[in-house]
């Protein structure tokens, strides 16, 4: 008997006492309250800051300036940009840093030699201070936001949802076109040495969230 058949047989034998049919257990429904109001945005800012990420609230016209400022403050001399990043944001990057296209940084070593990355996001979660990337063209493949040390992430106010169930409801993978997801709540951190929090063991040590309102 193959391992597959044997395990499935063992599991079926182990559950012969079960009389319900699959899917019959009722579970808490998702809340699904959608995008948040002003209070929710304030909560989002507070919870993101709680993780010692930096948050900047800007209007639609302020994004480019904020990107430039964030990269300059953190001394980023080279910045990788995803293929689908808003062109005016790419121009903003070019003002302070050497722009590296996603397609030009094919190797891990290329990315390792790059200081920062600028991306959009898929959504934000107010209660937990989480941003989620689904790695579409404006966010780039997963390695882009992982290897460079500074990540500037632009989140639109209408992308912020109240809580985890709202996010889960929005992020359900499409059959046949499931996107990978990265949930980020603050910069990389560890408490492994005597429980003292240290930032930036492996992922980016600087996370800047630009919240675009209006």
């Amino acid at each position, binding site marked *: 008997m193959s391992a597959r058949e044997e*395990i499935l047989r063992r599991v079926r034998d182990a559950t012969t006492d079960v009389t319900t049919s699959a899917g019959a257990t009722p579970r808490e429904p998702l809340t699904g309250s959608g995008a948040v109001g002003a209070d929710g945005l304030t909560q989002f800012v507070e919870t993101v800051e709680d993780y010692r990420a930096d948050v900047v609230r800007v209007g639609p016209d302020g994004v480019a300036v904020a990107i430039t400022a964030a990269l300059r403050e953190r001394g980023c001399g080279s910045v990788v940009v995803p293929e689908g990043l808003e062109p005016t944001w790419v121009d903003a990057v070019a003002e302070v840093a050497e722009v590296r296209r996603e397609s030009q940084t094919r190797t891990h070593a290329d990315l*390792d030699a790059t200081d920062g990355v600028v991306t959009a996001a898929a959504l934000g979660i107010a209660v937990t201070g989480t941003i989620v990337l689904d790695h579409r063209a404006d966010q780039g493949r997963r390695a882009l936001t992982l290897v460079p040390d500074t990540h500037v992430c632009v989140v639109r106010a209408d992308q912020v949802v109240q809580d985890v169930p709202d996010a889960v409801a929005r992020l359900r993978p499409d059959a046949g076109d499931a996107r990978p997801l990265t*949930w980020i709540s603050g910069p990389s951190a560890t408490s492994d040495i*005597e429980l003292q929090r*240290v930032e930036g063991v*492996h992922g980016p040590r600087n996370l800047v969230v630009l919240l675009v309102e209006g």
Partner: protein
Amino acid sequence: MSTQARGGPVQQTSSTFIGMPAFPEAAREALDNTQQRKNLRHATHTIRDKRAAVVDELPEWEALRVAGADAKDEALTHLADYLEQLEESLVAQGATVHWARDAVEANRIALEIARAKEVDEVVKVKSMATQEIELNEALEEAGVHAWETDLAELIVQLGHDRPSHILVPAIHRNRNEIREIFLREMAKVGRPAPDDLTQDPARLAEAARLHLREKFLRARVGISGANFAIADTGTLVVVESEGNGRMCLTLPETLISVVGIEKVLPTWDDLAPMMQLLPRSSTGERMNPYTTMWTGAHDGDGPQDVHVILLDNGRSHVLADTVGREALRCIRCSACLNVCPVYERTGGHAYGSVYPGPIGAVLNPQLRGTSSAVDQSLPYASSLCGACFDACPVRINIPELLVELRGRVTEEGHAAESAAMKAAAWVLSDPKRLAGAQRASSLVGRVVGDRTIRSLPGLGAWTSARDVPTPPTESFRQWWARERGDDR
């Protein structure tokens, strides 16, 4: 109750852990270690206070616990259906699915994949399933180095040590010990620690970052576990803090994930309670810094050769126990460890397994059976105060399960002891028989050499209590047949 009677083989894992001293003895050693006790107390209290604070933020916490328990129960009671669905979803998204009955089989599959890629090293993200099957050791034996990349695991690995806590595995080490381990060991296996390394945690973390990055960037095969495996979408989920998980899950060309069959969640929507329950219970955060979710292989992003090994290794055996099966709901958050007065004083090593603390006291005897001394002693490693049940995000009634297990151990223990006594009495009552037993030479004797055996499988508590001579070289049965003919 015998294993056979409950239908299904128990866990197969090497004797490394099982050969450890039983809980009371190991606990006594741990109690002598004041540093460890101090660290543990600090750790458990810090995490538990943080946890209490973030749990209080959610008025619907009790409803979430029920939802979490329901989701796991739904998956467990119809596990075969959901496993088949999971496999189908994974394959549809381009993953290769393997099934492993036990540790040996899982390790062999992982090794074959690594061999096919012609690599002599892999990077790993902390995973209890791979610790349970001792995958690192199996790979190492075959000449493939497995690099642990979580900071704590790195400390443990470089220190030639074993993890002592699900969540903070190196909690038994202080910063000065860590500095010494880094200075002494890093150079032997890669980028050395800087000469001017101090005991400042930030400097220690920086040394680890540089040491490990070299390995991440060149690694071609990554190995992980999974916190959840979602049947209806085929999505695997890894929850972590440092980003080493993301490195292992996205940089290599090939990814191997070892997933216990109890990790299945029926639907995508079941993630909603889990993603609230797990981080809050585990590290006392509203959300852990990083979570990676992937569904098979993603074109142009991350590993293109994605393997999932579905592991039984005793889980179906636990599932067959209608009372004990709820232990399989465990999402390994470690909240029960942090509130346990017994664990706080003894530390994780005393449990003789990768699963320490209250849940370990339940799970290990269930997974391995109660034939070894350590597994017989574990159900007693509790004060039954009930704190673990209150802390558990999926409402596992640990105290109740421990009482149930105590009952079983007592029944079995007596039977085993009297059988052992009878066999021993028969041998010892006749000097000629004893001489014959000692003179003979057998496979068992060769394997264990001259060392005195402190614990024999099947004889359990009785032999562990006193040293017995190394057994004769032929099996007892062969010897019996030779000495006594077939007059049985």
